[in-house]
């Protein structure tokens, strides 16, 4: 089967988008006031990589977080937000702070997964400093172990407003 015919046969893979979240109670003001654009720098603070898989799923063709204006970027200087996964281990404590400080203002912090939100299964471990919220101010929390791509996207959309 040739590439072109495959493209034609598969067609659109992305699931149709649900309506834009508008409830002001559980949305966050987009950091710059411009809706529909959010670039994220991801930091793995000590995750089991379960959350990473789900984030990758959220950016896959099926969930396609890009349609809501979200992109993952390489440099924190290009980012508006930090997406953090896992408990903050001692080794990743300082790098997490460094990354956050490298992101230009205004910025948001999104904690993905139970570990990042409250320590989850690893809370209180000897190598653990705490949850992400214990270390830096967190704006958006995505609980779940791991949260599903749909949940992650729903949370991201509360920030992009799209």
């Amino acid at each position, binding site marked *: 089967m040739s590439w072109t015919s495959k493209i034609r046969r598969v067609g*659109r893979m*992305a699931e149709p988008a649900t309506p834009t979240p508008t409830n002001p109670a559980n949305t966050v003001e987009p950091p710059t006031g*411009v809706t529909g654009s959010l670039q994220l720098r991801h930091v793995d603070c000590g995750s089991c990589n379960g959350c990473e898989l789900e984030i990758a799923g959220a950016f896959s063709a099926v969930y396609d977080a*890009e*349609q809501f204006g979200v992109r993952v970027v390489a440099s924190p200087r290009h980012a508006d937000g930090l997406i953090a996964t896992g408990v903050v281990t001692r080794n990743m404590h300082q790098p997490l702070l460094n990354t956050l400080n*490298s992101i230009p203002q205004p910025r948001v912090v999104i904690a993905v997964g139970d570990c990042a939100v409250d320590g989850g299964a690893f809370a209180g471990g000897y190598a653990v400093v705490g949850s992400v919220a214990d270390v830096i101010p967190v704006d958006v929390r995505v609980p779940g172990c791991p949260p599903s791509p749909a949940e992650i996207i729903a949370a991201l959309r509360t920030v992009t407003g799209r």
Partner: protein
Amino acid sequence: MSAMSVMSVVATLLQVVAVLVGAPLVVGGMRQVRARLEGRAGGGVGQPWRDLRKQLRKQQITPLGTTVVFALAPAVVAGTTLLIAAILPLISLGSPLDPAADLFGVVGLLFLGTVALTLAGLDTGTAFGGMGSSREITIAALVEPTILLAVFALSVPGQSANLAAIVAAAADNPGQLVSPGSLLAFVALAIVIIAETGRLPVDNPSTHLELTMIHEAMVLEYAGPRLALVEWASAMRLTVLLGLMANLFLPWGIAGADPSPLGILIGFVVISLKILVLAGALAAGEVFIAKLRYFRVPELLAGSFLLALLAVTASYFFATPTN
């Protein structure tokens, strides 16, 4: 040369404004084409504009230890590109700046922008900045011979390297466009434009991996408004080069040296369509290819150099005298 008529000035200004406004849309369109072919929904044509507006509202960060080179490079890249947009015959032939810079001058300005950005990459003093600069300048050095030879091949029929003359000669004598020389030059120029604008297979514009980056690696330290300028400029470069390519090889629809308002309108619509078609084709083509290993890129460029050399020789041997 062209009389400095009011309308040609209007056409030139329109050209610049259209490039400023349209370039992010072109990039958005390309991303959209790509997304659709990959089965995704995509961020929409307006996504680059949203990103730009957002970056312009973000804090400007100057990394410690950098100099004025780092601070000014984005403006130089954007400035050279704007100037090129004002020189090129996109909407009409009679840009008041056309006699001020011919195709060699335009190529020089393009490289001036590249050099500014590579110096900025070095100025940061980071490992990735230097790496990106080194790679970018290597590609630029190897692209230059092809570009100039392609210019040479194109200048043979019109007997001038000035853009208006080349485009006018091609429009007057369309048979020239399907000559072997012209076709070879087209392919050669297409390859160098891909290389210069950092598209696949030379560079992957959407990579997140620093070690595979070329263009992106140089601009890792830019934030906020400067980043916005860099991205805007790279979108404009792509747009302008696609427009140049379109009018060099499909010169129809362009308004004359002293255009009427209708002519300007037609010229504007036609060039927009041409650019969109070329951009769409480029984006669609990118779906099917992977990035080349960096040290395979010189082979590609050597190939394009050979094509350009053949183009010149062919245009010499098959030249149909215009006068």
